[in-house]
């Protein structure tokens, strides 16, 4: 798989054959990848996929069972957390409740031995960066969730870490605030130029913010690439399923031709489409995203007929469920004209999709 890289190719973090077992439980199978300088890198996966474990191993809170981690080319395996030039934004923020916000932000700088004047200037800069300068002498208990989040960011950014680790920092916020913080985080990363390693289980968040995403599942890397790569060219069924919505249709592989396959699908058609990990005679699936199905059908595409059995009007879009001779297809249709009206449940329709939009994935 082609991993498109940011312009700068210097490695910030190198993960080499790192695995982690807790007793008999293999939390993470050996994985290897690099994170580049100045990159917004996301570890994405369902809970229990090993993403937080991986982050904690970079921070030094857990020791890998095998493998090595290097930070800017230096092996940091033997270093305790307080000697690693990385900082963490914790899921619960972990602000010190007995310290004011200033003291919280200054804590890391004091431990690094910064002189007082430089320290105070940095704290003021950080408070300004997160728009919290008016709250310097408050205690964390007096802040809202979003404000705590900002202070946790300021505290972690203050010591100018080589890499900033973020452990699901948005999960405790309400939906609206989460949207706003996404933009703020992205802006902050561009402004500071610090490498961000972001852990989340929210695929939308990951697609929105990341330069590159590493999709983890069952303790291994499922795919690593740009958001567009991962959405458009999923490397397997897990990724296609986990990222966004899709329709899976059983596919029988008739012949293979390099990265394309000819398959027959239950709609009673045979088609030739891009494939990954499929083999002749093996079970495979065809994945087609709901927004890539045309309703009504377009000429030159693979067409079928069906009955609408569900319609959800969502403003900009309407989501339909269509029963095409026993195969249920989810279709997302953009309401681009104000005269577009929701099709009725029970209505017979023609729909179609381009073979090029479908992906054949080994199951």
């Amino acid at each position: 798989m082609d991993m498109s890289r940011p312009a700068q190719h210097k490695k910030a973090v190198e993960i080499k054959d790192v695995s982690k077992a807790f007793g008999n439980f293999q939390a993470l199978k050996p994985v290897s990848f690099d994170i580049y300088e100045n990159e917004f890198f996301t570890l994405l996966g369902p809970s229990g996929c090993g993403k937080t474990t991986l982050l904690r191993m970079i921070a030094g809170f857990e020791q890998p069972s095998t493998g090595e981690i290097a930070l800017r080319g230096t092996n940091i395996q033997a270093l305790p957390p307080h000697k690693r030039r990385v900082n963490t934004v914790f899921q619960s923020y972990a602000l010190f409740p007995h310290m004011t916000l200033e003291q919280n932000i200054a804590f890391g700088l004091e431990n690094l031995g910064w002189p007082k004047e430089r320290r105070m200037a940095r704290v003021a800069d950080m408070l300004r960066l997160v728009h919290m300068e008016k709250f310097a002498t408050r205690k964390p208990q007096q802040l809202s969730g979003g404000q705590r989040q900002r202070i946790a960011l300021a505290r972690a950014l203050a010591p100018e870490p080589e890499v900033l680790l973020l452990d699901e920092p948005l999960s405790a916020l309400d939906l609206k605030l989460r949207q706003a913080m996404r933009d703020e985080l992205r802006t902050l990363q561009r402004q500071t130029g610090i490498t961000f390693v972001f852990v989340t289980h929210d695929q939308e968040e990951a697609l929105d913010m990341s330069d590159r995403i590493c999709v983890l599942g069952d303790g291994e890397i499922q795919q690593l690439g740009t958001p567009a790569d991962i959405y458009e060219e999923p490397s397997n069924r897990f990724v296609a399923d986990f990222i966004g919505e899709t329709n899976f249709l059983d596919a029988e592989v008739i012949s293979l031709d390099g990265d394309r396959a000819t398959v027959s699908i239950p709609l009673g058609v045979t088609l030739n489409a891009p494939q990954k990990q499929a083999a002749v005679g093996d079970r495979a699936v065809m994945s087609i995203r709901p927004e890539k199905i045309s309703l009504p059908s377009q000429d030159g595409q693979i067409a079928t007929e069906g009955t609408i059995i569900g319609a959800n009007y969502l403003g900009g879009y309407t989501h339909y469920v269509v029963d095409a001779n026993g195969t249920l297809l989810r279709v997302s249709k953009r309401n681009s004209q104000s005269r577009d009206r929701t099709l009725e449940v029970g209505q017979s329709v023609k729909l179609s999709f381009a073979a090029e939009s479908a992906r054949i994935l080994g199951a």
Partner: protein
Amino acid sequence: MNQRPKLPGWPKLSDWNVLGLLPAHLIMLMTLIIPVGIIALVSFSTRGPYGGFDYVFTTAPYKQILFNEGWSGELEFNPQYLIVVARTVILSLATTIICLALSFPVAYFISLQKTSAKMLLIYLVTLPFWVSMIVRVYSWIIILGNDGVIAKALRALGINENMGSLLFTDTAMLIGLVYSYIPLMILPVFASIEKLDPALVEASHDLYGSRLTTLRRVILPLCRPGMAAGAILVFVPCLGAVLEPVLLGGGKTMMMGNLIQLQFGAARNWPLGAAISIVLMCAVMVFLLWRGVQAMRKEGREASA
């Protein structure tokens, strides 16, 4: 407006409130107010010729704490009892400090264990409470005595052959006090460590805090409420301790507890014993009130900050 007619029948709950609380009030009255009242009464009474007391009002017992009364009624300053008070306060403070220093690592160790091991260890800490206090303190006589384990061991090693007995010294009392009251420190300190969010410790390490920095700047400040509660739980009963000075101090060195006991017992001076009790109680109350006001002020400051 829309008033409902009052239905005859059961009295309203509020009518029963006073009655419902009556048992609690009765217990408070019988076990707290009346006994303290009696002690206060005795402290202002005259000593009877054969012990006991007569209901004749006098402030003499209070004067007696600080002064000797000569034959002709002149008052002469007598620091004897003040020395006992000073020793009591110093020993209680020392006990509190030693308990704090010993309890913190113990409580921290317990909090790091798995749940089942934690329960077992906490059970073991509270286990001595099930054994009579007298037996427990008595056992220290065996350990510290002339033929005790420590003395024998030292003699066998040829160290300090003519060391005097450890028993019947201030040190012996201190050991006994620390031993008796340390569980009262471990439990609240343990509770406050348990409440500590482990993420805060990780955050401190993450922000370049060494182990020592983390202990000093994050763990200890956040455990302060538990340590303060433990300090009060240890310090206050220490002030009134009787068994340790009687058994381990051997009556040679007195604390307020056994001074009071002595007045009601062998010395047959009930009014003086009662007066010392009242002074001790008032001192403790003032101390606790002062602490309470401090805590409230601090809270107020934090809320308004």
